């Protein structure tokens, strides 16, 4: 009887211990590795391509880079919309897409980017991409 009581107390203790908040965090998936990898790869590719562009870059030459990044971000958005408590992440990813589309439109309208237009659009897209990648890494 004493042994049974001890075992009962032991199992209750284990249950309480494993359900405490200290253990919750390491056991939970820290982030969605799939969306993180899409965001990181898209941002790295877009930033490295734009960093290599010279002033005078034509829209025709830049278009494949924009289109590829656009398709990846739309794919990312589709997954993000299915996630738990997704209001911020969807809004942030949408902002990245919006910045990419505005850059694409501005480049198309201008025909080619001068050094300032290139630096501003590069800065905006790099910043928006950094925000998405950082959020994807921290988002639970």
């Amino acid at each position, binding site marked *: 009887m004493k042994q049974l009581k001890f075992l009962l107390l032991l199992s209750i203790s284990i249950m309480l211990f494993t359900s405490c908040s200290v253990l919750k965090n390491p056991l939970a998936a820290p982030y969605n590795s799939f969306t993180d990898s899409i965001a990181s790869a898209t941002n790295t590719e877009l930033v490295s391509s734009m960093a290599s562009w010279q002033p005078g870059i034509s829209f025709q030459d830049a278009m494949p880079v924009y289109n590829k990044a656009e398709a990846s971000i739309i794919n990312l958005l589709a997954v993000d919309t299915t996630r738990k408590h997704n209001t911020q992440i969807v809004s942030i990813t949408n902002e990245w897409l919006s910045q990419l589309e505005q850059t694409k439109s501005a480049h198309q309208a201008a025909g080619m980017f001068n050094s300032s237009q290139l*630096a501003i659009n590069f800065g905006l897209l790099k910043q928006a991409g950094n925000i998405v990648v950082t959020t994807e890494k921290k988002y639970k």
Partner: protein
Amino acid sequence: MDLTNIKDTLLSEFANELAVLAGQSTEVIAVAKDYANDSKEVYGTIIESALKGLSPDPAIKAEGISYAEAKIDLVRETEVCAAAFKSVEQIIASDLEMDVKTFAQKAIAIFENLAANLFVSLKG
């Protein structure tokens, strides 16, 4: 206490309480600083480019942007800043091991409590 004082006290106390709720996380502060540096850089580039666009020297002017373009770019940068703010909100919620809904509920409860206490002081 007048209404202006109440507003100022309420906002500053609420900010303090939120900082406590966020746990003064060094990780969150580092991310916010990183975003702020990015913003500063982009704002600087836009302003510098607009000044180049105003230059009477055609060679320099060709490297700049018009005032109209600068205005659009400043709006775009402001939109990115709003996204940065949302990201920090999300990270704070994650950092606290809370979901966003719980975080918002706690923040609203703190705000209501502070407001109720301050309005009592107004009646007095």
